[in-house]
Structures are given as C-alpha cells and as structure tokens.
C-alpha cells in the first residue's frame, strides 16, 4: 500500500469565501455515445460512455477572470455550457452567488446576471434579425426597459460601448465583418446588465489584429462594469493576457489551477510544462524547448490512472493505476499529479 497522505478532497481545495461569485464543485458530465440499441445487441457491444468532464472544481471571485485552457477534447467548452446552464451536469453543482443553478430553484432573476459569448460570431447571430433587435432581445425578455424609446436608447448606447455606430443597428449581421459581429455579440451579452460572462473561445475565429481589438475591449468593459469572466481558450498567450487565474484541463480533468504569473513562471504539472514548451517562440528569445511527445488519447477509452501518464516524462508506477486527486498548494491553486506530490514529500517546499 502506498504511504497514507493527508488527502484534501477536491471540494475543500478551495474554501468558498464571501467574495466568490461562482463556485463549481465536482462537476462531471458523461455523454452516451453508444450505437443504437439494436446495433449493440447484434454486434454485442457494450454501451460507450464519454466522460467529457470529471470532478471539475473551482471558484471565481468577483471581478476576476478565470481561464480554462486545454486542447481539443479536454472538456473546457462542456464546463462552460454547464456553468451557464445550457447543459445539465451528470454530477456536481454550480453555484452562482450562492444559488445552485441545477438545483431546481427559480432562476429567472439569476439568468439575467449570466451571459455567454460564443466562438463563432457567424453562427451566433440570427441572420434574419436586424442588429438592434438582436441586442434588444435580452432587454425585452427581462423587462429591463419601460418603453420602446428607452430600448432604442439603450441599444444605441450599447453599440457605442462596443465601438460601433448607433446607426449600425438598422443593418443585418451579414453586413458586418467577423470582428464587428463579435462586438455585436458582446453588446447583446451586456444588454441585460450581467455580472458574469462566460466566453468560449471568443477570439479564435478572428484575425490577430481584430483579436487584439476584442481582447482590449473585453478588458475595458470588465474594468468599467466590474464583470467576472470565465474565459475558455486553447491559446496560452491569449489566456496569459486576459486571466488572473488559469485552470489547465486534460481529458476532462483540471490538472492544475494557479494564478497566471505562478502558472507561467513555475508550472507544476508535467502537462502544463509541455503545453508551455509547445507555444511558438515569437520573441525568438531562443528559450530552450523540450520536444512534445505523443498524442491526446481517445477520451472514450482514456488511459487508466492519470490520463496523462503515457505522455508524461515523470510517470511512475502509481500514475498507471491511481488517478491523482487535486491537492491544494495555496488557497488559490492546486495541482493533481503524483510526481509533483512525491517531489514535495522528498523535498518539502519552502
């Protein structure tokens, strides 16, 4: 048997505090990707389950930006959908301002305070609606204005806020470029005066110069309105630019979560280190890079134990059999890795 360690349950890794707007506890989602019943019977195949997210726990403080990074299939978008209430979790809960959004409570008042910005600004705007109608919809839905004059006024303000002309409201989405469309999406998200925005890859469909405009805009709006962001991205440089804290996801689990500066200066989890090494060196600083090995395994049939062990340079026996639990390092960070844990036991951190 292994040495008994003072295990910290992941739910306690981050004690909930008053300043937390969002608390996510042991959130999991399983998708059934089996073939139809008859095929399973004829081909004698068992059900196939895809564990998209397993035991994700984190909290987001007010006015904070928490980013989730990971490669495709890591489950970051699934987390985003469960946090806004678009996808029901298989287990775990999401509390926003203390209210469990999957607990059957009346959420009408809470819904207004949560909004989402999606990746593809071409798909997330109704092509048959004028822009002013798109932006006015949440205002109408939540009854935030008393008459149509007030709505028009508010839509004009919102368009200006995101750097468009109030007259642009009369146009249709196809008359705008990708960056302008993403501005419209942001205006729509802000129209219900939300506190919490979930942004799922908001700039990955945009060109770099436009991406810079949108990222700057999002930061300005955060300062202006005191917004809290959950920011989903695969781009580490973008995340570094936007986030206060970063969670790194691999095959459905958050393997490390740390304040941005710590994560980039002293990455702990071997996967985080590998990801950082893989980022192209634009500054041509000649920083040493390790070669990235291997591929992301199939999430339907993930490796036993730590899902990263087949690619991990530090893997040892225990990694192959036992899933590492997140262990708190500070009140705002944790890492889930047997090798890091072992290193700390032999060489206690100062």
């Amino acid at each position, binding site marked *: 048997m292994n040495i008994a360690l003072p295990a910290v349950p992941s739910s306690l890794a981050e004690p909930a505090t008053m300043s937390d707007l969002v608390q996510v506890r042991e959130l999991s989602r399983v998708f059934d990707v089996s073939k139809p019943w008859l095929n399973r019977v004829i081909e004698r195949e068992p059900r196939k389950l895809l564990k998209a997210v397993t035991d994700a726990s984190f909290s987001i403080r007010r006015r904070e930006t928490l980013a989730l990074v990971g*490669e*495709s299939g890591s489950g970051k978008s699934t987390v985003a959908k469960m946090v806004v209430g678009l996808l029901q979790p298989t287990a775990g809960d999401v509390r926003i301002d203390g209210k469990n959004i999957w607990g059957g409570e009346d959420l009408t008042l809470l819904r207004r305070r949560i909004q989402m910005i999606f990746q593809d600004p071409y798909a997330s705007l109704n092509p048959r609606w004028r822009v002013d109608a798109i932006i006015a919809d949440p205002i109408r839905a939540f009854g935030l204005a008393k008459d149509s004059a007030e709505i028009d006024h508010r839509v004009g303000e919102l368009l200006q806020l995101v750097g468009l002309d109030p007259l642009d409201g009369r146009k249709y989405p196809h008359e705008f*470029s*990708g*960056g*302008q469309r993403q501005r419209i999406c942001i205006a729509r998200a802000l129209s219900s005066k939300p506190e919490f925005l979930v942004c799922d890859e908001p700039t990955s469909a945009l*060109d*770099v*110069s*436009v*991406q*810079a*405009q949108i*990222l*700057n805009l999002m*930061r300005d709006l955060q300062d202006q309105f005191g917004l809290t962001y959950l920011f989903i991205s*695969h*781009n*580490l*440089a*973008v995340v*570094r*630019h936007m986030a206060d804290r970063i969670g790194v996801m691999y095959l459905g689990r958050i393997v490390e979560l740390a304040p*941005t*500066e710590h994560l*980039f200066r002293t990455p702990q989890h071997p996967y985080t280190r*590998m*990801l*950082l*090494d*893989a*980022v*192209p*060196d*634009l*500054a*041509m*600083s000649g920083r040493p*890079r390790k*070669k*990235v090995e291997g*591929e*992301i395994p199939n999430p339907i049939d993930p490796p036993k134990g730590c899902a990263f062990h087949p690619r991990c340079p530090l893997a040892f026996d225990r990694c192959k059999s036992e899933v590492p639990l997140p262990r708190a390092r500070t009140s705002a960070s944790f890492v889930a890795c047997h090798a890091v844990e072992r290193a700390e036991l032999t060489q206690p951190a100062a």
Partner: protein
Amino acid sequence: MSPPVLSVRNLRVEFPTRRGTLVAVDDVSFDIGPGEVLGVVGESGAGKSMTGTAVIGLLEPPGRIASGEVWLQGERIDRLPPEKMRRVRGRRIGMVFQDPLTSLNPLYQIGEQLIETIRTHTDASPAVARKRAIGLLEAAGIQGAARRIDSYPHEFSGGMRQRVVIALALAAEPDLIIADEPTTALDVSIQAQIIDLLKTLCRDRGAAIMLITHDMGVIAETADRVAVMYAGRIAEIGPVRDVVQRPQHPYTKGLMGSIPTLEMGGTRLTQIPGSMPRLTAIPTGCAFNPRCNAAFDRCRVERPDPMQTGTGAVACWLAARAADEADPANQMHPTRMAP
C-alpha cells in the same frame, strides 16, 4: 548564390465579376532558394492562399493569372497546358493543406494513396513503391508504419493524418512544398511536432517550402524569410529575424504588437484600428493608409512599391522618406514628390 527554386515575378490574380474586376493578388514578386523556408503571413483576405494557389495553377475560375510570371527552376510554369501542369504538381511541387481530412480520400487506405502517388510520378514497381511508402510514413513519424499503411484515413487522429499528408506531399521528392496553414487545424502540442517534422524533412531532402499561415508564431519558429501580405500585396519581405524584431512597415509593426505573447504578460495589446479592406473597396494610394497612424499626403494618392532596405524590402513611403533624408542622392523611387 544558387538560383532560386521558385521565382514569382509581378504576379497579378484577377477575378472578373459582374461588378468589375477584383484584384486578389497584385504585383507580387519573391524568390525561394533551395532548402529555404519562405513564410507568407497575413490576415484573412490578404491574398496569401491565392498566391499559393496561383503558383500551383489551381485557381478556381473565374480567377486567373492576369499578368506576371512563375518560374520553377528556370522553367516557366504559369502558362503550361493543364496536362503538363498536372505532372509538375505532385512531382515537382508537393502540397500540404489545412484540413488533413479533406486532403485524403476517405475511401482508400492511406497506403494505396501513397503508392498511387509514387507510381504516378516514378516508374517504381508496386513492391518498391510500397516499401518507399512505408519509409515515407516512418520518416513522417508514424510508428508501426508497416502495419498502419493499410489503415483508412478515419482511423488516424488529426495530427497523424497531417503526417500522412506530409508523407504524401514528399512522395515524389518534389523541389518545392507549398504548405497552406498546415497546422491551423491542430492542437498546440501537435502543431509543434508537425512544424518540426516539416522542417527536418525538407532540410534533409533539400526541398524549399512556401509556408502560408496567419500565425506569426509558426513563422518565427520555421521560416528563414517572411513576406507579410496586406490587401493582395507584399507589404514587407525580409529575413524572419529582422521582420519579427525590427518590423519597418506600420502594418507589420501593428501586427506584431497585436499578438499576445507569453513573455509580455498582461500589458495592453497594440491595436490597429479598423480591419482589412474588402477586395471591392481597396483604398487608393497605399492600401493600408486609412488604418495607418503615420500616413501622410503621398500615402493617400500614390501606391508604394517594395523598396530595397538592406536585407529586405518594404512597400511604404515612410521608409522611402527616411532613406531620402538619410541620403538625399538616393534614388529609391522613380517619381519624386515634394514632401
């Protein structure tokens, strides 16, 4: 210096439409030497893919090369009849596209596709071709190539498929590889592997690469020289270190400043106001002038051509003016206007 593998001279690609002619690529010239990697970078609509497509003669009608020349190792290829051009493609120019799934035929095993390519372009026997296909797959980093050669494309992951596509592009040992966004569809950790692979394979075989991408990071890692395109024209071209670290064109400067990097942390990004003009509304003068914070009168009326600046060339009147001030006798441009 050895003669270039690919030489493009004053290439112009037009699309005749009912509302007039659109110019997608305008007066583009560059050379790629043996074993050299030329990065072609730009945002959507800059004309970078169109340049690549024109070079390999795969422009979709009504698009056509209106003027200019494309030379491959001293042979002019832009006017070859389709049948001859087909032999050039694959045999002398290999291609790697963005989406590895659509570049492979899903109905054929990858081995068949590789062997077919090898046998089309060389007179290898089926057995020899199969052996070479396995060798290529191994060189492309596919483990157990002898076993996996009989797999279908859907049995491979995205990164593995791109390795197969690279093997396919190298099958006939071409002199030039045109890679159009080869890593855009891939995850970062896989992207780094594919870049390394493309680079080593081409270095080992002495093939030149034209690497088309929107990702400056990929260019910085891979390319020897880089051409920055804007609205169908080359704004700046030069050794990658110079362009990345000391960009001269205001567009390149803005572009570099707008890319978030790991080194820079949370500082505010530089913003270029506006966006790339549509082909239907390219501004007169320098196409970048409405977005340029240093534009002066001349930029609004007269179009700058690339002008030599030591190691590279830049199409900008500011650079011309700076050079004039440094050396009044310098005749860098044909028409001289009062400042």
